[in-house]
C-alpha cells in the first residue's frame, strides 16, 4: 500500500511539473490528463469509488477533452518565446518558498484535529459507496446541489452568449 502510494505520488508530481513546465500547450494539456488519472487512482485508494468514477468521466473525460479540442482548434503559440518581463517570476519563486514553508509546518503537525464521524469504510461498504453518497447529496447537501445546478445553467447560458457575440 505504501509503495503504491509512493509510485502514484511520484507520478502526480512529475505530471504536475509537466503541466507547469512544457512549452507547447498541447503537452501541458496531456500532462494534466495524466495528472487527473493519477488523482483518480488516489481517490480509489481513499475508498472514494464514486469520486474516482466522477473524476474520470467528468473531469478527465469531458473537461480535459474540451481543453484539448480548443488547443487543437486555436493552436496558440507557446508563450515562452514571448519577451519575458523580468519581475513576475520572482514573485512566483517567493510564493513557492512560502508555500514550501507552510508545507513544512504541515510536516510537524501530523494529526488531524477534526472530530471523527461515523461512516467508517466498513459502514459505507455495507450500504454501498454510491448509495451513501447519493443519500447524502439529496438530504444533507440538497441546497448546495440545487445551487450548483443553477450555476451550471448560468454557465451554459453565459457560454452560449459569449460564443454568439459578433467579434468586432
Amino acid at each position: 500500500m505504501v509503495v503504491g502510494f509512493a509510485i502514484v505520488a511520484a507520478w502526480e508530481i512529475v505530471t504536475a511539473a509537466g503541466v507547469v513546465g512544457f512549452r507547447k500547450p498541447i503537452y501541458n494539456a496531456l500532462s494534466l490528463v495524466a495528472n487527473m488519472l493519477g488523482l483518480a487512482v488516489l481517490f480509489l485508494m481513499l475508498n472514494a469509488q464514486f469520486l474516482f468514477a466522477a473524476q474520470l468521466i467528468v473531469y478527465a473525460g469531458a473537461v480535459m477533452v474540451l481543453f484539448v479540442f480548443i488547443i487543437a482548434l486555436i493552436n496558440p503559440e507557446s508563450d515562452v518565446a514571448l519577451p519575458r518581463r523580468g519581475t513576475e517570476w520572482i514573485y512566483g519563486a517567493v510564493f513557492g518558498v512560502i508555500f514550501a514553508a507552510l508545507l513544512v509546518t504541515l510536516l510537524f503537525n501530523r494529526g488531524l484535529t477534526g472530530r471523527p464521524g461515523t461512516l467508517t469504510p466498513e459502514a459505507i461498504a455495507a450500504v454501498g459507496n454510491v448509495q451513501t453518497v447519493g443519500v447524502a447529496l439529496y438530504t444533507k447537501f440538497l441546497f448546495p446541489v440545487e445551487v450548483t445546478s443553477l450555476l451550471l445553467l448560468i454557465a451554459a447560458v453565459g457560454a452560449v452568449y459569449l460564443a454568439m457575440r459578433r467579434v468586432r
Partner: protein
Amino acid sequence: MDTLALLVLLTPLAGFIVNALFGRLLPRRIVGWIGAGSIGLAFVLALLALSQVLGGHRLDQTYFTWWQSADFNVPFNLYLDQLSTLMILVITGVGFLIHVYSIGYMREDPGYSRFFAYMNLFVFTMLLLVLSGNLLWLIIGWAGVGLSSYLLIGFWFERTSAVFAARKAFVMNTIGDVGMVFAAFLIFLNLRVLDYQGLFSRVHQLPKGGGVITAICLLLLLGAVAKSAQLPLHTWLPDAMEGPTPVSALIHAATMVTAGVYLVARMHLLYDWAPTAAATVAVIGGVTALYAATIGTAQIDIKRILAYSTMSQIGYMFLAVGIGAYTAGMFHFMTHAFFKALLFLAAGNVIHAFHEDQDIRHMGNLRAGLPITFWTFLIGTLSISGFPLLAGFFSKDEIIRGALSAAGGEYVLGILALITAGLTAFYMFRLFIVAFGWEWLAHDDRHLHEALPVQTIPIVILAAGAVVGGYIPVASFLSPVFGQPAEVGTLAFWGLAGLTLAASAVGFAVAYVLYARRPELAVAWRTRLGPIFTLVEHKYYVDELYDRVFVRPCLALARFLNDIVEPRVIDGAVNGIADFFLLEAREFRLIQTGRVSSYALWTLGGAIGIVLVVAGFLGYLPVRLGG
C-alpha cells in the same frame, strides 16, 4: 378659579397669534383694539381672580404633566396667590393702558401690527413667568420676556443702534439665564423638586445659611440682576431706550425689569434661609440705586434720565426684598409701575411733539402747548420724588423705614437710600424744569400740539394711580404670603417720614435754584466739578470697561476661531480625513492593473495571509493569536 387663571394667561396669547398671523391683512383699528383688548380682557379676568383671592382662595393647579422622566417631574401648573395676583393686576392693568396709548402713538408706524403682536407676546410671557407654579416654567417665561424685549428694542431694525442695543440686552440677559438654570440644577440636585409647593416645603432640609442654599440664591440673583438691570449687568437698560416709548414704558419700567424683584419675593423662603445671599441682594440694590441716581443727574436725553431713574428705583426694590421687607418692595413696585409708566408715556408725547428729538435742552415751556402732558408729568415727578401723600412718598418711605429701623447693619443701606431719595428729587425736577419749563409762554411759535385722547386718557388714569396708589392696602393684602411687616414706634415712624421728606425737599430745592432761578450757577458748578462731572456723565465708563475687558477679547477670540481654527483645524481635519481616503484610494487603485497575473498574486498573498491568521488562532504559530 383654575380656568380663570388659564384664561388670563391665554387671552394675550390669542391676541398675539391673531395679530401675528393676520395683522397685516386687518385694518389698523382692528389690530390696535385686538392688541389692547386682549390685555383689557385679561385685566378684567384678573379682577375676577382678585375677588376670589380676596375671599381667601389660592390656586395651585396642575393642568398636565409636561415632562416626566424618572423622578424629574415638571408639570404645567399655575400658582395664584396674593403675590401673583398683585403682579398680574399691575401687568394687565398698566399694560392695558399702555396698549391703548400705543394705538395713538404708533399710528404712523409701518410695523403697526408687528408691534402689537410683540407686545401681546410680551404680556403673555410675563404672565407665564408670574403665574407659573414651578421654577422651570418661570424660566421659560423668563426667556420669553427676554425674547420679547429683544424683538421690541430692535423694533426699528433698520437702525443699527437699535439692533446693537437689542443684542446687548439679550446677551446680558442670557448671562442671567445661565445663573437661573444652574440654580434650578442645584435645587433639583438637592431637593428633587422644582415646583413651588414641593420646593417651599423642602427648603428647610438644607442647612440654613449653608453653601448650597447660598449658591442657589446667588445664582437666582444673577438672573434677577441681569433682568432688572442692576449692577453689574445694568448697561443694557439705557441702550434699550432705542425701542419705541411704549416699550420702554411697559417692559423697561413697569414690568419686565421688575421680574427680578418678583423672583426674589417669590423665593423669599429661600432667601430667608440664606442670609448672606439676601444681604447681597440688598447691597446690590442700594448701591445701584445711588449709582444710577448720580448718573441720572448728568444726562440730557429724556428717556435716558427715566431709564436711570428706573434702575435706581428697582435698586430700592432690591434693597427692600434683600432686607426682608418684601411687602415694602412689592408696594414700591406697584407705585413705581404707575408713575414710571406715566412718566414714560408723557415723555412719549413730548418726543412726538418735537419730532423724535429727545434732547431736553431743546425743549422747555410746554405748559401751553401740551397742557395735559405737562400736568400729568408734573404729578409723576412729584410722586417719584416723594411729595407727601402721593403714592411714591408712601412706598419709598416704607423702604427707608424698613432699612433704617432694622436690627443689623442695614442702616447703612438706609442712609444710601436717603441720599438717593434726595438725588431722585433733584434729577427728576431738573428734568421737569428743563424739559417742561416753569414759565408760561405768552405765545409759542413752535406749533406744538397735544397728543390724541387715546394717548392722554391712559396717562391721566395712570396719574390718578400715582396719586392715590399709596392708599391701596398692599401690605395687608400680601400678609398671607409674607407675614406682617415689622412695626415701628410712632416716633420712629414720623421721624423717618420726616427724614425722607427732608431729603426730597433738599433735592427739589437744589434743582429749583440751579435750573429755574439761576441757570448760570448750574454751569458754574459743572465746570467746578469738571472731571467728576465727566465721570458721571459717561456713566462711570462702565460700558467702556466692559468693552475692553469682555467684548474685545471675545471678538478677538471669535476672529481667531473664524480665521485660524475653522479653516485650518476643523476644515483641515475634515478635509484631511477625506484626503487621506482619497490618497489611499489612489494608491490602491494601482492594484487594478487588469493583468491576471498580478491579480493572482494579490489573491495568493491574501490567501496566505488568511492561512497564517487561522493557523495563529489555532495555535500552530509561535505567536499567540486570539484566545
